[in-house]
């Protein structure tokens, strides 16, 4: 009996820590299915069918906008491009760091993780203006990759280092070149790491706000930036804003479910395993 009570208390504690987490996401969805007036109601309407009838009007209004679809497409292209670039650069680099122990290179990538984004922003803006790249996918992909690159590289260095050294020795005795070892032996073995790196890189770019705010204009604006635009009208359309917030957040949460195991090492650039 005492044991059962203790376990009940334990699960109650966990549920207690979950309440704020779920409430914010719940409020996001709940706001999106309320009308303008319902969202301004005092006191706030807490539960659907218990004070208000859920409506789809915010969602249909949002989906009817070509601007929304264009923006979502921009987000997708930039995040995919950034991921391809970060993986293309980061995988060989991570292999090199793990194999030849380039401490300096690894440390410089850590510096990239630490450096505030604003330090790059003005030079990029001036450079990309000169090149005519402002408001292009190119500028966004290149700059978003700077956030993904340290994350991808550090995560994969951990995976490559965990490969047994014997494999490498055996491969060389068999006349296997470095490239063969990299391409045919190491890469297939770190596949879980590659998937995690790809998804974390995608999320980092998808969520990126600061760089897109400056370097994207009307043609390449991404979802986080447009959220702010929904607000700038005289009377903020909270319902539509919440619907858009849900659309931005949902893919990220689904992707999180896929790679939950290694996210922490990604976020701490490999300083913590688990």
């Amino acid at each position, binding site marked *: 009996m005492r044991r059962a009570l203790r376990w009940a208390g334990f699960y109650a504690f966990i549920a207690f820590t979950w309440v704020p*987490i779920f409430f914010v996401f719940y409020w996001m969805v709940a706001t999106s299915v309320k009308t303008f007036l319902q969202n301004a109601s005092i006191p706030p309407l807490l539960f659907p069918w218990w004070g208000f009838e859920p409506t789809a009007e915010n969602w249909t209004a949002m989906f009817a906008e070509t601007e929304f679809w264009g923006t979502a497409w921009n987000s997708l292209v930039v995040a995919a491009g950034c991921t391809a670039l970060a993986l293309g650069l980061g995988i060989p680099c991570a292999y090199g760091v793990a194999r030849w122990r380039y401490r300096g290179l690894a440390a410089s990538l850590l510096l990239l993780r630490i450096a505030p984004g*604003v330090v790059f922003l003005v030079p990029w803006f001036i450079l990309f203006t000169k090149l005519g790249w402002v408001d292009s996918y190119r500028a966004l992909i290149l700059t978003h990759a700077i956030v993904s690159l340290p994350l991808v590289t550090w995560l994969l260095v951990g995976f490559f280092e965990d490969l047994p050294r014997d494999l490498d020795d055996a491969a060389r005795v068999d006349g296997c070149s470095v490239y063969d070892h*990299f391409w045919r032996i190491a890469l297939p073995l770190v596949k879980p790491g590659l998937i995690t790196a790809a998804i974390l890189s995608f999320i980092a770019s998808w969520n990126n706000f600061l760089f897109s705010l400056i370097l994207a204009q009307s043609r390449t604006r991404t*979802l986080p930036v447009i959220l702010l635009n929904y607000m700038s009208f005289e009377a903020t359309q909270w319902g539509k804003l919440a619907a858009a917030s849900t659309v931005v*957040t949902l893919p990220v949460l689904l992707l999180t479910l896929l790679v*939950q195991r290694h996210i922490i090492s990604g976020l701490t650039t490999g300083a913590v395993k688990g």
Partner: protein
Amino acid sequence: MGRVGVTAPPRAVTAPAVGEGAGRRLLDRLDPHAWWLFPLPVVVFCAFIALFPVGYTLYLSVHHWISTDVVRFVGFRNYWQDVFTSPAFYRAAGLTAYFSVVALGIQMVLGVAIAVVINRGFPGKGLVRTIYLFPMMATPVAVAMIWMMMYNPTSGVLNYLLEAVGLPPQLWLSDRRSVIPALILLDTWQWTPLVVLITLAGLAALPLEPFESALIDGATPAQVFRYVTLPLLRPTLVVAALFRSIDLLKTFDIIYATTGGGPGTASQTLNLFIYQTSFRDNLFGQGAAMVTIFVALVLGVALIFGRFRRAAGDLA
């Protein structure tokens, strides 16, 4: 170990293991160069996209920028006038410190407490960890928007809940005094789970013997935590504090989206201040001087923790 020694492959004594033809021969020729070819793309990329901006920022910081083609050298005037003797800079630095230090303290204490309580094997542990990932992975701007609605002083749900339990309603983001605490609460919601998960990973890696001997010696749970868990956990906690403090100092998205630095300048942290100096006021030179000092501060904090971590690692 020597780089060349490791890379020089024993030339295929037998037939090449895999592949044939010209492509194969090219790969064999490139093999001794693999050690620099592998990291080369990243080095080139970083030189173009990261090193150049840093150099250009330093250049801008000693110039008065009028337009891309009109730049006047002013020496250290930007540093002197807009950083070292500027009350606005000190105010922004103070706000940044206030926000970061308080948030770090709350998140560390809360995060470690939750981790220590839930650190045991139980059905559904994986699910708990997954749920904790959601706040920190969710798009910060989207989350900030929802908090902004909840913080609304008249129709917001938080004041409603406060009144429901008999507490006075707050002005949250709309008042100079409560805006930073409100932002701290938002950030704490989003990032405490990271501290929980890092601590859980650290706890899982601890040896069992010290705990067993402490129990045999009749230590109370509080004593075990204070004299066994905490010292053993120190390296992990330093890592958590390191990443949290760096990201707290750099916080931008949630502040820009909810308050834009307001009301007035009450939430204008260094990052916001620098951004607005550069892109609202178009003072690129002054902004560059500020950002240089800002980066130096962030690096300083990272170095302190790095040193601390080494010391903690030696102890453990």
